[in-house]
């Protein structure tokens, strides 16, 4: 038998090694001009730091972005060279345009601005950090460290899977409680997971809600806010942000709460792209109820309050209806429903199963509705929808994400030839898309659009072949540049070369990134966090509408100008040698 002391020593050595590795990525986040501060953790080698919104503080209301510089003489000379017969007015216009471009490149947009932070790392160095995205709804923020030298990278810890946590599992909290460490070496505390999927109400105007948090007994104290919670493997499974307190004031009583990493992942795209994230709501309140009314046992979660024009009412859910399932999961308590809704961003499409109340007091048959979550108003978001990080920040983010995917090997060149992707339309017709390099063939039921690559193409409908209209040409181009289902995997990095991270989106129960592609038409390509395609969006010039395609497995959801088009499904995606007849025009 193994000596128990050896086992203890071995376990201790493992723990020390993990803590040693993780501690390098834990930082102190402090305000530039006032004392106090919190903690944070670097989750990306490009210097992206996760912390709490309440550590970042209030927006700097009096702040005005600095004016852009004037274009340099070289730029002007180059422009004059290119536009020899331009008048002064044109030059003024150019300068204005150049300044606007400079703004978009270097400055974040949106009304609220947050002062830069001082971020201290355990190596004793102090960095300046720019506040990118904020999530006041559930107390998160992302900061990007400004490098001291070109191409600097930072030690980092990856986000783990918080749903794999079990009560009793060992965890460590790190951070800088009470700002004890003036050299920024983190304080490590040890404990177990005391509870999972806990719902903690917010403060004030639905801000700082912890909808799906991890309860730990590892001591978490003021100053630990924003610091990471690690599992035994050293993955970040939460961000410590709140404690329940007893009678003794703001100190630990063994009940701390961490924002679960899987919730963070749902908002990661928006946070890194510098957005003001918004949480979704069903626009109703539900309660758990049990009553014995003589006829039938009522026991479950029922709609308690809603509005006449709320999304659920419009979908046919009424007062007193029983909610049985949410996104396929059985609902057992109001807490659980709040937990499941609270971790989703606004705009997420969800399915809800309910049993409508009947006039005789009973319940009708279960039915399913699909609704888009509206934004939960936190009061801070009203005028801030346009918030977005500077292009530099979004480019760095995109490069970083792409780099991770390349490193993971998901784009290894195993696919060859043309790509074919099948969709099934609501009228049961098959829609086939075949892409081969610059060539694209779209079979939309009986209507066929083909682009042969050199800007040319043809359309076939009702047995007739004709030239493409300008709108159809543009439609084909937009599908070709934005639809990642039609890209060979190995092409992805090249296709996303000039893209910028635009934000996040939730596709069929998984978080994805949205990348804005250059060119007209609001083209977006979407990818899940692991690098598999999640869908795309563009403004369709033929339908004259903005169309989104949400793809996951055989699930396909088509959203036209914000409305769901029911009945779509996705078929197989295959690669192989293209047949020339697909792109040949027959008269």
């Amino acid at each position: 038998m193994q000596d128990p002391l050896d086992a203890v020593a071995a376990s201790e050595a493992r723990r020390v090694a993990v803590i040693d590795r993780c501690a390098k990525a834990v930082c102190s986040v402090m305000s530039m001009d006032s004392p106090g501060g919190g903690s944070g953790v670097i989750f990306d080698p490009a210097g992206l730091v996760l912390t709490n919104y309440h550590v970042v503080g209030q927006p700097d209301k009096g702040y005005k972005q600095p004016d852009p510089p004037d274009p340099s003489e070289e730029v002007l000379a180059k422009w004059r060279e290119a536009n020899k017969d331009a008048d002064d007015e044109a030059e003024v216009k150019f300068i204005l345009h150049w300044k606007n471009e400079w703004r978009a490149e270097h400055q974040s947009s949106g009304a609220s601005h947050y002062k830069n932070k001082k971020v201290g790392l355990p190596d004793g160095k102090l960095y300046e950090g720019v506040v990118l995205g904020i999530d006041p709804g559930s107390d998160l923020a992302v900061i990007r460290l400004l490098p001291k030298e070109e191409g600097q990278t930072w030690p980092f810890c990856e986000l783990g899977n918080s749903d794999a946590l079990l009560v009793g599992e060992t965890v460590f909290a790190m951070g800088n409680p009470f700002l004890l460490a003036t050299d920024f070496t983190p304080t490590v505390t040890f404990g177990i997971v005391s509870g999972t999927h806990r719902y903690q109400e917010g403060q004030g105007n639905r801000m700082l809600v912890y909808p799906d948090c991890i309860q730990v007994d590892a001591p978490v104290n003021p100053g630990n806010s924003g610091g990471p919670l690690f599992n035994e493997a050293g993955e970040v499974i939460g961000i410590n942000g709140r404690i329940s307190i007893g009678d003794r004031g703001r100190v630990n009583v063994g009940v701390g709460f961490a924002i679960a990493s899987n919730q963070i992942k749902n908002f990661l795209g928006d946070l890194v792209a510098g957005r003001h994230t918004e949480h979704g709501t069903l626009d109703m309140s539900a309660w758990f109820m049990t009553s014995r009314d003589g006829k039938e046992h009522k026991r479950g979660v029922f709609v308690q309050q809603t509005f006449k024009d709320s999304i659920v009412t419009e979908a046919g859910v009424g007062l007193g209806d029983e909610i049985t399932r949410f996104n396929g999961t059985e609902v057992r308590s109001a807490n659980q429903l709040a937990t499941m809704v609270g971790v989703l961003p606004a705009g997420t499409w969800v399915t809800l199963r309910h049993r409508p109340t009947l006039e005789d007091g009973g319940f009708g048959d279960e039915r399913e509705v699909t609704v888009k979550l509206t934004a939960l108003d936190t009061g801070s978001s009203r005028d801030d929808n346009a918030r977005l990080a500077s292009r530099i920040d979004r480019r760095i983010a995109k490069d970083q994400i792409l780099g991770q995917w390349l490193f993971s090997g998901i784009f290894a060149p195993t696919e060859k030839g043309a790509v074919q992707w099948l969709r099934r339309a609501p009228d049961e017709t098959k829609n086939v898309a075949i892409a081969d390099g610059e060539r694209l063939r779209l079979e939309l039921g009986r209507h066929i659009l083909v682009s042969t690559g050199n800007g040319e193409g043809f359309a076939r409908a009702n047995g007739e072949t004709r030239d493409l209209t300008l709108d159809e040409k543009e439609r084909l181009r937009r599908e070709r540049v934005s639809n990642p289902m039609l890209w060979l995997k190995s092409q992805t990095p090249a296709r996303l070369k000039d893209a910028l991270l635009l934000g996040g989106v939730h596709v069929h129960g998984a978080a994805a990134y949205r990348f804005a592609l250059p060119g007209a038409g609001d083209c977006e390509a979407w990818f899940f966090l692991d690098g598999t395609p999640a869908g795309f969006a563009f403004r369709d010039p033929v339908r004259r509408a903005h169309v989104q395609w949400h793809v996951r497995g055989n699930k396909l959801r088509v959203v036209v100008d914000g409305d769901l088009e029911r009945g779509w499904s996705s078929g197989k995606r295959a690669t192989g040698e293209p047949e020339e007849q697909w792109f040949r025009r027959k008269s």
Partner: protein
Amino acid sequence: MMRIALTVTALATLLSAQTKDFGKYYSFDEREPKTQVERTIHGLLPSMVKIHGASGLATITAYATGIIVSDQGHIVTLDQILLQKGRTRVVLWDGSVHDATLLRADDKLGVRLIKIDPKEVNGKLKALWPPSEKQAKYRNGQFVVSLGNCFRLAEFSEKLSATFGVVVGKANTALRYRMADVKYDGDIILTDACNNPGHYGGGLFTLDGRWIGLNMKLLDSKETNTMLSAALPSRDLLPYLEEYVLGKKREDVIKKVVPVWTGITLFEQAGRKSPPAYVERVKRGSPGRKLGLRIDDMIVRIDDFSIRSCKELRSVLKKYKPGDTVKVMWKRGTKVMTGDMELMEKPKR
């Protein structure tokens, strides 16, 4: 248009207890327990219940935890204000809610048994019982987990909170009975596994799942402004549980308790809350007279208990029986005097 967005609030109303099965435990997908701690906690959770009761005051919690001690529906918990009035409801691990009837409380231990109807329970109740004397042993530094519903974080089928720590020590509350609001005067287990409101009545377990303690209220010292987590040794509950759960007769209950008599009448000023224990009169032939107590002597100590008021003197004397000899310290003027006093039964007239 003004528009208010409603959140999905977690409002739980229990209009009536009912017993239908409400599906299985918990509904988030979870992995299987792997480590010893995880296995122990998940093995014990079905034996723990959430208790909800009435509370008259905002500062007094209306929720607690209990441990199932028989498959007949007996549940042991700390005797608290929430159990005193109104309905008491018990939530089992599967989220089902049951009305509970209150059984006999034990004032000395400060615990109470409550009972739910086992016929209304879906399946068989998984009961715990205090371990044998050998198994009930614990040592300082031994790892423990504490289970309970602190701050009412868990509702219905949600899991109770688990905290982890070590046994810090053993303490005799009799020595510090004035510092903390503890009824029990035996040895209690001190631990650093966190204990908070709502956790009371939950269990303290060793890592191999032995039930060693029942979580008590936080020991709170007003003098040092410190609080300690403590548990009542489960072993000490045994006579009580045997009597009221198994129906065994307990000897010390049958024996009539005889109050001790000292023959001292104390000087209790009207209107004063806790007057010091000044002697007003001493009966002839009483233990007090034998000791040599006189009028205006102030009793300050009996054995290890310091006496600050008449009330304290009376409560300390309750711990003794006739025939016991106690060491008494009293103050006469500026002198401090001591002596032994043999306590007596009150003579019949």
